[in-house]
């Protein structure tokens, strides 16, 4: 962690898990890997709002391929007023993906439930290929067996914010990924 980052840690952040420099370096590596793997192709990168937009913005700027971007948003459990509902597409694709090489760009994969739903939805659209690129992988929480093609970082089972990730819509603009203090979300001792 650089000194510059250390001096600007948000008061609600317990510790910095990934510095801005670490993230930028890894995103550049992922971009280079995608450049190589999709050489000669014109993939479409699908970002899932809201957490992944920061990652997407940096990732595409590290890629030299001709590519396109599309955005989706799906409802989240608990965010709906009624928890008895079902996941819904709040923002659908703007363009068809049939025959296209698709890269789903995710900020974090933990349980995999959202991604599991999304992949089923996207497969029905007939893409030529469907790959997953996530910045953060939290395998300890996984309920679904989803092969992730590109992983930025595998992280421990902590509640993280920053670099697009929020808690209650806050902290998305932090340039690093940090562990949120449990007291912020009302648990003083999350390990108890």
């Amino acid at each position: 962690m650089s000194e510059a980052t250390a001096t600007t840690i948000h008061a609600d952040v317990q510790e910095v898990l990934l510095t801005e420099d670490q993230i930028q370096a890894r995103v550049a590596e992922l971009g280079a890997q995608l450049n190589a793997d999709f050489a000669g192709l014109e993939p479409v990168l699908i970002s899932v709002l809201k957490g992944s937009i920061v990652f997407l913005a940096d990732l595409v700027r590290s890629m030299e391929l001709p590519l396109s971007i599309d955005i989706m948003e799906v409802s989240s459990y608990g965010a709906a007023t009624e928890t008895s509902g079902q996941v819904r597409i709040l923002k659908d694709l703007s363009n068809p993906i049939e025959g296209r090489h698709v890269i789903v760009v995710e900020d974090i994969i933990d349980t995999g439930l959202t991604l599991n739903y999304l992949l089923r939805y996207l497969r029905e659209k007939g893409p030529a290929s469907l790959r997953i690129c996530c910045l953060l992988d939290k395998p300890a929480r996984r309920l679904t067996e989803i092969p992730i093609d590109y992983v930025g970082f595998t992280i421990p089972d902590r509640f993280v914010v920053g670099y697009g990730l929020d808690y209650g819509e806050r902290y998305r603009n932090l340039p690093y990924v940090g562990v949120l203090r449990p007291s912020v979300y009302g648990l003083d001792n999350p390990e108890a």
Partner: protein
Amino acid sequence: MALLSETLPPRFAHDSEAELARVLDFYQVSWRYEPDVFPISWSPAGAVIESFAPDFYLPELELYVELTTLRQALVRKKNRKLRLLRQLYPEVRVKLLYARDFRALMVKYGRLAFLLEMNGANGNGANGNGAPGHGANGKAAAR
């Protein structure tokens, strides 16, 4: 195998199980509640003396899920049963969700209010000391 919303809900042993069923329903993951019982120890005469029935089976994911909201210090017995299950049935995939895992899930989905209610109703301490702490603001982490 069905989504909860499409059938009569089973009689869940714990509110946390009902909540997990709602989460699975929300994400359209089919589940069965305690569909299978796995014998894990036998008497010398061959009678089953101990068995393990995981709370959920998710057929599309071929995964059993056992949810425990017991305090971490009290899950030793369940860990032992799970270890036996894995030894005897290595082909069976089981995910054990501890209290801290369930709590993290609720935090992620902004369901701290549910944790508070669950504690009040069941008194078995989502965070191990009978209260989920202060500041439960119910905000969803809309990741």
